[in-house]
């Protein structure tokens, strides 16, 4: 085929037409992209405006502290310090995890807090507003009304927020509300740690992700007695558990003082923790608490149908046994 024949052929016409259309479309899109570009600042302002409808607010965006931003229960995506008329408030965009079908709920959470440092700590004063902006797999999330979220906000105690304690909030979307509660507890933990300077004394200890600063322990003759207060793991609420670890680094006594499962837990199950060491508990849930699987629980003979509560109880047991040496070295704090 000669060059002349090629330029007259259908093949050349196809290439020319297709390239022309692509070129024209590309130029058009380039022009429109510059005309309709939405900057990151504009997107942030839009998102924040949804939290404060009809109100002009000012704020400063903070960089997210990665150390406290991501846990098994929540991820902090963005953080803002409100200024002007809303000074003393912090706005966090948080993904609450462990919702229905292992999905997530994304929320904006407005927190009231007094800022501080480790030397001069501030205080967390509560949550003013929760705005749900998105979710994954939460088919029944529309069952959750503003009054349900307000009920969770109102039920704050020193261990955090709880949607599911002795008088549960009935929505028909228990796990979605659980994910929202996880986000709210995440907002509390993050604000306390980053803005208020209320650092958890156990954060350097092994497997401390679900252990709150309210936890205490005593050491006597090499025997460590913990009074562990766990975080909530919605739908399970916070547990308070007394665990005694003997000199052989195994549990000699395990007593649930405050049960976060509406009395679903079985003493027989937790009695089986006696005599077990850190290696056993780490084998079930892992030191980072990354495994939460009924089948895994079941294979260790501790399946109860209350997985979220089991997870907290196992976390407490792992914390107590894995940190025996540290506790003995520190000498107690109660």
């Amino acid at each position: 085929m000669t060059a002349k024949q090629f330029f007259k052929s259908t093949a050349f016409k196809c290439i020319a037409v297709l390239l022309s259309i692509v070129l024209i479309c590309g130029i058009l899109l380039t022009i429109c992209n510059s005309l309709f570009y939405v900057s990151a600042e504009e997107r942030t302002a839009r998102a924040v405006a949804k939290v404060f409808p009809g109100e002009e607010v000012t704020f400063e965006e903070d960089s997210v502290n990665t150390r406290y931003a991501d846990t098994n229960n929540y991820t902090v995506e963005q953080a803002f310090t409100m200024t002007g008329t809303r000074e003393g408030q912090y706005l966090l965009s948080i993904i609450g995890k462990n919702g229905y079908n292992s999905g997530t709920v994304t929320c904006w959470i407005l927190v009231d807090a007094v800022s501080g440092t480790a030397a001069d700590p501030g205080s967390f004063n509560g949550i003013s507003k929760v705005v749900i902006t998105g979710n994954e797999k939460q088919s029944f999330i529309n069952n959750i009304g503003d009054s349900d979220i307000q009920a969770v906000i109102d039920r704050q105690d020193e261990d955090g927020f709880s949607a599911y304690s002795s008088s549960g909030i009935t929505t028909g979307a228990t796990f979605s509300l659980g994910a929202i509660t996880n986000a709210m507890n995440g907002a509390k933990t993050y604000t306390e740690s980053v803005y208020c300077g209320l650092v958890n004394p156990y954060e350097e200890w092994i497997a401390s992700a679900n252990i709150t600063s309210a936890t205490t322990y005593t050491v006597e003759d090499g025997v460590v007695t913990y009074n562990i207060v766990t975080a909530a793991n919605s739908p399970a609420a916070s547990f308070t558990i007394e665990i005694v670890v003997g000199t052989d680094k195994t549990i000699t006594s395990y007593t649930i003082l405050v049960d976060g499962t509406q009395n679903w837990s079985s003493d027989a199950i937790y009695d089986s923790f006696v005599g077990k060491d850190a290696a056993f508990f780490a084998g079930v849930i892992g030191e980072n608490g990354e495994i939460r699987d009924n089948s895994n629980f079941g294979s260790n003979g501790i399946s109860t149908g209350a997985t979220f509560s089991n997870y907290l109880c196992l976390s407490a047991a792992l914390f107590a046994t894995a940190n025996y040496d540290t506790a003995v070295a520190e000498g107690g704090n109660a």
Partner: protein
Amino acid sequence: MNKYKKITLDGIIFNNPTFMLVLGTCPTLGLISNALSALEMGLTVIVVLTLSNMIISALRNLIPNEVRIPCYIVVIATLVTLIRMVLDKFLPDVYEALGNLLALIVVNCIILGRAEAFANKHTVAESAVDGVATGIGFTMALTVMGIICEFLGKGSLFGLQIMDFSIGLFSTPAGAFIIFGLSICAFTAIIDNFQRAKRVKANKLARENLLGADEAGNQTVEEVKA
């Protein structure tokens, strides 16, 4: 019948893309749990479908047959991207409500289907009418099913709460699928009945005309005999 009227009726009713051709099922199932989102998606599809039909019709004599599908895809993808940019800039709530399904309009079979089946064989004006009519048919179908699903699934209409009772299933794609199937049944039954009635009426008219012609013919023969 006026050809524009026929194109319009075909697009909205007799070749309704959702109920009769069962095209564009992905956004249908994804969005009909919310009537407002369904309406917004329908309006977006009207714009994209009309513009794509017009452009493809205008270029139909330039585009070689061998590369027509890639050309259509490029044109449709460009239009959808433009619409996304405009919505993101000026109607961010709509942009967020439609989410990823907005980008999926590119592969919506209604748009490519009308380009291939209609726009590349008809004039720009006819293609524009077809785009609007088919888009309206799609929008109506989505909105009607959205109203039913939202009412049953959330007890609300276009976001306005009107009753406390709701059946959660109808807020899910599974519930949407049930409503979709029942809607197809109902729409097909109505159209069938309408067309049957039309056929009966036409047959009756033809029979009467035939009998009238016979009588007229007999009279002529008798007259001849007389």
